[in-house]
């Protein structure tokens, strides 16, 4: 017994020694030791951290459709400065623990010139410090939490801030209703979004007669929706995601017999399938409408998307698509390296814009967010979301 332990310990030490001599690095990290710079390979990659499995897997699937289509387009148009653009996918389940664990792996892979993802802000934010420290751009294209980019100067997001979305949301609600009941999802996103909504609603003089949050995994919302209905509102507003939005409207309509207007839901097939007829007339804010967009390149995107996947793209697909196009555009204007991407995001002022009213956009260097993307309104009609002029 003892000898075997000695042997094991010795083997361990020898192995450790070998590794040590092969790569004596110290504590400075990979970046400091390998003279960061461009790889000589002819493919550069964008690292993707996303939920392929787990509770957010549905969004992971939508993202991947957008990413894959975007990379195809970039490479068809000549790649990035002559190099082929690739994607390296890392499943994190949008779980902070896994994001933190996998982030150094992306940093260590020198072919990765920028990172996109994750779905949820807490998970994304757990990975940001690692990318920031390594000088790798973290492009949180889906992270609308207003504090998301505060980690450092390499953390960016083109996502419209919740302040803008919720201002637009409260404004359209004010047009239709004086007294409202509001429910919202109890997480960092929902909480923040509701704060913005409430501020604007107060400015507009809209009276909130009932409010409550709900946990994302609650299955019976009648205990909060009964008082919400009984407060006799002109409209019910839900600030949440797709499945819970469907649960709210289904409970209101099917179970509690509420017939008034509803503001809520999500532009996903999931929501529309789940809510069915109840979705009809639901109004939400969004950044993109496949049928309503008047921008030529966005219309081309819709056509390509349809050819590849057989359905129209929604907001999740278009933001994913746009994220890759943005980064490739930045790389083509500078160089396809980590430094190039960062410089591109700082200097380029005409990123092609697929969302909102199309055209181009640039970043605000103070908060590393896109200033001039405007939210649009969408309404569910005949089982589809269409652009709504208000």
């Amino acid at each position, binding site marked *: 017994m003892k000898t075997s332990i000695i042997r094991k310990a010795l083997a361990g030490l020898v192995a450790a020694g070998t590794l040590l001599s092969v790569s004596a690095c110290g504590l400075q990290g990979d970046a400091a030791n390998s003279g960061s710079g461009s790889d000589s390979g002819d493919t550069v990659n964008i690292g993707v951290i996303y939920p392929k499995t787990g509770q957010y897997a549905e969004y992971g699937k939508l993202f991947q459709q957008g990413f894959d289509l975007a990379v195809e387009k970039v490479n068809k148009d000549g790649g990035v400065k002559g190099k082929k653009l690739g994607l390296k996918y890392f499943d994190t389940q949008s779980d902070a623990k896994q994001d933190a664990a996998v982030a150094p792996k992306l940093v260590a892979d020198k072919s990765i010139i920028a990172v996109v993802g994750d779905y949820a802000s807490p998970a994304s934010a757990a990975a940001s410090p690692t990318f920031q420290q390594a000088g790798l751009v973290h492009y949180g294209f889906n992270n609308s939490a207003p504090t998301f980019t505060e980690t450092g100067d390499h953390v960016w997001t083109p996502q419209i801030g919740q302040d803008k979305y919720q201002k637009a949301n409260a404004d359209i609600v004010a047009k239709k209703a004086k007294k409202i009941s509001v429910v919202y999802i109890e997480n960092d996103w929902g909480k923040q979004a509701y704060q913005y909504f409430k501020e604007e609603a107060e400015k507009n003089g809209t009276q909130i007669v009932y409010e409550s949050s709900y946990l994302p995994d609650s299955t019976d919302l*009648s*205990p909060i929706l009964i008082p919400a209905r009984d407060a006799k509102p002109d409209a019910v507003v839900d600030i949440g995601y797709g499945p819970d939005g469907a649960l709210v409207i289904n409970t209101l309509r099917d179970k509690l017999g509420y017939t008034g207007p509803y503001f809520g839901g999500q532009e996903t097939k999931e929501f529309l399938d789940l809510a069915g007829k109840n979705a009809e007339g639901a109004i939400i804010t969004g950044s993109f409408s496949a049928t309503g967009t008047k921008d030529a390149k966005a219309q081309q995107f819709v056509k390509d998307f349809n050819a590849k996947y057989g359905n129209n793209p929604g907001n999740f697909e278009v933001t994913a698509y746009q994220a890759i196009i943005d980064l490739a555009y930045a790389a083509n204007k500078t160089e396809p390296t980590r430094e190039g991407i960062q410089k591109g995001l700082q200097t380029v002022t005409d990123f092609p814009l697929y969302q909102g009213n199309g055209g181009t956009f640039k970043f605000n260097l103070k908060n590393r967010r896109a200033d001039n993307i405007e939210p649009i309104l969408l309404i569910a009609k005949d089982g589809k979301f269409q652009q709504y002029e208000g």
Partner: protein
Amino acid sequence: MFDVLFAGVIHGSAYALVAVGMSLIFGVTNVANFAQGSIVAVGMMTAWWLGTTAGWGIVPTFIAVIVVTGLLGLVMNVAVIAPLEGRKPIAALLATIGVGQVLDNGLQMIFGPQTRPFPKLLPTYNLQFAGVRFGTSDVVMVILAIVSMLGLWAFLKYGKSGQAIRSTSQDPEAALQMGIPVKTIRNLSFVIGSVLAGVSGIFVGLFNANINPMNGGTIGMTAFVAATIGGLGSIPGAVVGGLVLGVVEAFGISLFGDGAHDLITFGALLIILILKPQGLLGPKNDVKSEPLTGTFLGGGRPIELPWWGNLIGAVALLATPFFFSDYLAGVGTQVAIYAIAAVGLTMISGSAGQTILGMAGPFAVGAYASALLTTQAHWPFLAALLAAGVIAAVAASILTFPVWKLSGHYVAIATIGVGAVMVAIIRLAEPITKGSLGIQGIPFPKVFGFTLYTQQMMYLLDIIVLLLTLVVVTRLRSTHLGRVFEAVGSDREASEALSIRTGAYKALAYALATFFAGLAGSLLAHQYTYIDPTIFNSNMSILILTIIVLGGMNSPIGALIGSVILIGAPELLRFATDARILLYGVLLVLVILFRPQGLFARKA
């Protein structure tokens, strides 16, 4: 008012239906089946597929679900639970966690991840009462809950197999001598329990209307709470518990909002356990063998290394940050942080023999304490780290204080409640903790004026804390106090006879364990630089417990090895992206089956 009550009763009968199956299995096999919720999900998804894609009606779907879940129960018992016969029931409990993971992720792989509408196999929302609409489906569900309760009761009381089931559960040896085929009877209990789960899956599907393959975990946990409130093992109790929970939730939520949902559910659990420890209708005499206590294999002894072995190990570990790549160091930080919490847990769950299922609670308190002390009060990191441990221990001890007068498995269940309540309080204490918004911009650890900004530096810090933890815990084990913990763990009654106050010593061991969980929480917070309540979920609690099961319940070094495997494994299994978490469950089951004493312990 009346409509809220009514909504609560309907939701409660959905809980009741699932809880009946759970209570049955617990009552007759002494196994707390954590896979029960996942079997409900299997029934639900089978019915979804048959009802939509295949277009079957309610009757053939019903029969098909019975066949599928019945077979599943049989396979589960034969392959996983029966081989664990004769070992401490905690082995079976942990195996069911593994099975649950396999089922949940298997369902997601087969059916895809999206939430979907459940087919209307029976009319829903076609009736109205007190301003709330409900459907034939709900009526059938309530009737089914009552009928299955009465039917089971009559079967167990008067049926020949039912009587055999009861005698098997009371004394398997004696039952065998009386000519009862114990194996077959156990199979039968599992088949009945699974079929009940599967059938309730159909009705939960109809009730929830929107379903997801991953719903099993939540369904199982709530049913477990309902069954405990009613009295674990009591079948009428399961129904009463389900209804009580449904109604309490409905009123609590309509008063305080759904943001307080967890606080209401688990708060109700705690209050009932404290006021009426056996549950509302639980049997007066507590079960003799306590299913959730005891070390994994009674006599499993940790493998002890000689001092120089430990020294070499420590030096080798300390050397790793100097040649690990960013990636390895990043994984290493996670391994080390979880190992710190797990090593602490060996004190209470290993030595003192008390399974703790809510370690995420003190972990979260430590993380928040440290984050707030550094960002708000501008404490230096090291002081905040220590304070995080102390605060976690104090908070956990205060909340758990009334629990120690409970006996046996009710303590373990209460710790689930304590863990969940701690996180729920953090979520609601918004002025201090920022609630669901989370705390951002937590500084990297700063030690003597030097900021640790690389993965390797943080990893080195984590390892130093881990080694200190190992030294303290190993030293403690060989002190008088450590021996008392061992005595409490290996024979509670004998310890009481020696006038050792077992409850007090368990509380002390728990306080020590939560101190280390607090340290781990602090390290995690300063590495992520962002925390919010969703990080500290029940999966985290179960993960920490599983780590020490794997390594050997009372082996501190085993806890480290367990952490390397369980935190490292999902990374190693990255090649199998889809099946990653599924393989993880398989691994857990295999270890429990084939090396039950843990990896770093030898059989007695």
